[in-house]
């Protein structure tokens, strides 16, 4: 494997991080919205959100990616491979994130909400000033954990030709007729990325995990 081949693997790593990062940036707020809808028992929307979460949690990312990439254009909407990849990861991770947010919401101490209501705080202010500052601290370790799982699921988007790490490695393997070295290098890159995230998770748990739990 040449130096140039390794550089194209690094490019792939950049793309993996970019697409997974975009997926997380969309998926975390989307998951929060889904959790709020279910928590507040919004009529009509709450059951839909529940079905969405259940369905997406049992859908393989590969299958969803193929569905989005091939079926969305039949609706007359053009979609590129990158967009399809980001959308896939965002939709999948939103379902898992919503369960993390919801667990935090369900465990939220009711007495605080009652006190806030007694002081005449409207719902929006209660959410912004009382719930959210504590909720994100409780949910952060779970969200970072889900981010590691998402990186491990991200090779699914190689199936539609996005040149992320896995795709870059198979391409180098096909060109050099020696698939093993690029595969091992790619595995090393994933391990490095995931170890950084696991380290981040430990740090986050130490730094923020306890504060919310005690409040």
């Amino acid at each position, binding site marked *: 494997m040449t130096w140039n081949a390794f550089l194209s693997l690094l490019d792939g790593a950049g793309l993996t991080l970019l697409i997974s990062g975009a997926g997380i940036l969309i998926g975390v707020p989307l998951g929060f919205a889904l959790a709020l809808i279910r928590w507040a028992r919004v009529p009509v929307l709450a059951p839909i959100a529940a079905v969405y979460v259940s369905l997406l949690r049992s859908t393989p990312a590969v299958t969803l990616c193929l569905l989005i990439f*091939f*079926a969305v254009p039949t609706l007359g909407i053009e979609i590129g491979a990158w967009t399809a990849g980001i959308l896939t990861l965002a939709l999948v991770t939103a379902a898992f994130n919503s369960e993390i947010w919801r667990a935090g919401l369900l465990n939220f101490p009711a007495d605080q909400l009652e006190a806030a209501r007694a002081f005449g705080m409207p719902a929006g202010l209660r959410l912004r000033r009382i719930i959210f500052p504590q909720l994100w601290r409780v949910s952060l370790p779970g969200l970072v954990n889900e981010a590691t799982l998402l990186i491990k699921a991200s*090779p699914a988007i190689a199936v539609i030709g996005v040149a992320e790490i896995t795709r870059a490695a198979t391409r180098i393997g096909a060109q050099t007729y020696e698939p093993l070295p690029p595969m091992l290098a790619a595995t090393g890159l994933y391990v490095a990325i995931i170890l950084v995230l696991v380290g981040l998770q430990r740090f986050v748990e130490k730094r923020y995990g306890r504060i919310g739990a005690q409040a």
Partner: protein
Amino acid sequence: MSHGFEIVWEHSDRLVAGLVNTVVLSLLGAVLALMFGCVVAMMLMASNRVLALATQGVVDLMRCVPFLMLVYLVYYGLPQFGIDFDNWTAGLAALVLYNTAYMAEILRGIWKNLPRETIEAATAFGFQGRRLYTRIIFPQVFLAAGPMVGNQLIQIIKDTAFLTIIAVPELTQAASGIQAQYFVPFAAFIVAIFIYWALCALVEAGTFAVERLAEVRR
């Protein structure tokens, strides 16, 4: 769009064949991974520190690797060592290898939190060696592990979809085939996704039954 579902229905035999492969691969993969996982869990819990630490290192490393990468490593790697097999077997080997690490970690977590008293009582009654494991430790571990093993089985079912990339004829591969031939992407993949959903719901129901059994036995 309804036209698409008609085509998929006409070729439902291909989906069923794919589904059978998905189910067989998942179940066989889970059972074998659980068996090997027991052995690895025993190594993780070994009193020999070097063995325990070395095993922990390998298990942790395995849990950092994306499943598809491991599939490629098995698929391209093992033939270089003279071990040649077809795609289906390569897929199964990757499933087993990957999930052995996860199963071992699940079993170890429960084993570590097992009440000491039962094991101490068992040794006091003269249980040792193999009988201590088969009669005292593993029955307790397996019953408590039910829900987590169920979760892992759902993960395995979802992971089998990756095997479409090395052309294993499983459910996603079957849906892809129908879609490529008749261009009915929406119908083909939606049907596949709903089948995955049903499979996972089935596993969840099974897990619930095991949990009930564990409650009764407690």
